[in-house]
């Protein structure tokens, strides 16, 4: 590869403004770093450079910036952060698009709806707690063999495949105006679970074996913090890096809940 990227971008210096925090409950502060950027660099490679050269733009020595990342190919969701005010994965965020010129600035903040562990690293436990709340799995453990799995048509598989690409990154939650930061675990049950969890409930409700837990999933989503807390801002579907039709999932689960609710009224359960 040449030293010039597709857009004709050259090596240059880019300023990174990073919101830093020493640890849970500690106050946050801003620090700026001047990073020499090669074409095709991404945010992670720049963070790597900062980790090796933890000196601010004023020449002050500081601690390396901490972040979370794993797959580096937008599949695991670990490196999700708020870049220039919008939530996305940092590994797939190319500097050439965000800062094509010498001296351009990129702002990095941790996700806003999860507790910060340190710097750009957040604790997404509540998202996984939500998946447990709606039993987002296929129950196959037992004392006897369940035999072959259910048959699936290609059409149905096609629909479900998109839902299954969710990597629990939390973008949909960060952009959701109805989803609020809640550090107190005791209050999670009453706070909105968010689109990602609803989508997983739909994925497993539509699975041949997974649907045995459908009533329990719908019950969980009918209560406080369930799907009725959705405000229909539809930000979730706009920011989803996997283009999962989240609003469609919300509407589909709402339809199931409507039917489930009427059934419950008339069966007296």
């Amino acid at each position, binding site marked *: 590869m040449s030293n010039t990227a597709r857009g004709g971008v050259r090596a240059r210096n880019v300023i990174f403004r990073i919101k830093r925090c020493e640890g849970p409950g500690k106050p946050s502060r801003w620090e700026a770093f001047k990073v020499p950027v090669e074409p095709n660099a991404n945010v992670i490679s720049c963070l790597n450079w900062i980790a090796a050269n933890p000196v601010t733009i004023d020449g002050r020595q500081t601690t390396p910036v901490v972040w979370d990342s794993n797959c580096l190919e937008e599949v695991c969701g670990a490196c999700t952060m708020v870049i220039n005010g919008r939530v996305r994965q940092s590994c797939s965020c190319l500097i050439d698009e965000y800062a094509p010129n010498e001296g351009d600035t990129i702002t990095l903040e941790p996700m806003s709806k999860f507790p910060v562990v340190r710097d750009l690293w957040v604790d997404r436990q509540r998202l996984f707690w939500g998946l447990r709340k709606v039993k987002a799995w296929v129950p196959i453990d037992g004392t006897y063999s369940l035999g072959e799995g259910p048959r699936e048509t290609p059409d149905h598989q096609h629909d479900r495949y998109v839902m299954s690409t969710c990597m629990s990154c939390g973008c949909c939650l960060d952009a959701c105006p109805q989803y609020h930061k809640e550090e107190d675990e005791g209050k999670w049950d009453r706070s909105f679970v968010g689109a990602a969890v609803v989508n997983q409930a739909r994925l497993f409700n539509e699975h041949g074996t997974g649907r045995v837990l459908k009533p329990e999933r719908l019950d969980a989503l009918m209560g406080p913090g369930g799907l009725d807390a*959705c405000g229909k801002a539809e930000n979730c579907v706009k*920011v989803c890096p996997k283009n999962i039709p989240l609003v469609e999932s919300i509407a589909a689960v709402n339809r199931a809940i409507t039917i489930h609710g009427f059934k419950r009224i008339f069966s007296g359960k």
Partner: protein
Amino acid sequence: MDNGQGFVQRNYFLLRRLHSLTGVVPIGAFMLIHLTTNSSILWGAINGRAHAATPIGRGVETFQDEVSFINGMPLLLLIEALVLWLPIAFHGILGVVFALGASNNVARYGYQGNKRYMLQRLTGYLGFAFILYHVATLRWGWEWLTPANTAWSHYFATSTLAAALKGDGGQWTVPGIIVSLGYFIGVSALVFHFANGLLTASITWGIAVSQRARQRWGYLCTGIGAVVMLLGWSALAGFVFLVDHDEAHQIERRMVELKYGPEFLKEIEREHLHRPGMEAAAIRRAAEVPYPGPAPVIRE
């Protein structure tokens, strides 16, 4: 599901769905009827059964006829309380409670859906305040809140409404300008709230699921919203800009006289005249205006 929490927590699903339902029926449905009735001040011009000489006069006749019909309904107070006040209070109070739990990130995520989300809450607050003012001044007799301390009377529907919107005798006053502007904002806010509420209700109930279905439903809601908005604006424009207060009052007097007899007309006019701050000057002035033409009789 129930965590031993309070009433709202235990009945969360039911309350949210009732909140959604009451917005469409009865509140939304009533608004459609209400704005259709009110815009008769304009479309009454083509009402073949109205007799007045001028188009707006026929509007006045038609509107008066509609208002008289509604006020002649049996058990009106009970209907109002059960079909309107109770659902509106429920929808409004619960809506405010839910909206307080919202946040606004339109600056960061300026998507159309997010803007509608923000506007839905804003128009909810505005609309609720407007409805309270509207019902309090025109129905509950809080005339001290109107531009010139005038009350609304269903016997003189158009003329007393013009006075309650603009000022005594339907003449513009400064508070009247503010009130009329408030009506414009309030009506527009409520129509948006209704149309956007219809759109989101399709997600709430899972009626339109796929992207395409929701898009089609969105077009329909936009169309419904545009038509209802036009009804609301035309009604307001009719009462604020087009109505001649004194002509309207003459037509209304004649209709009361024909329907209930001259004795009754004298009686309610006396009643109005003797209530302080009640359009006294306007009624006196209107009484001196010459008779407006053939007797306006509808439904013979």
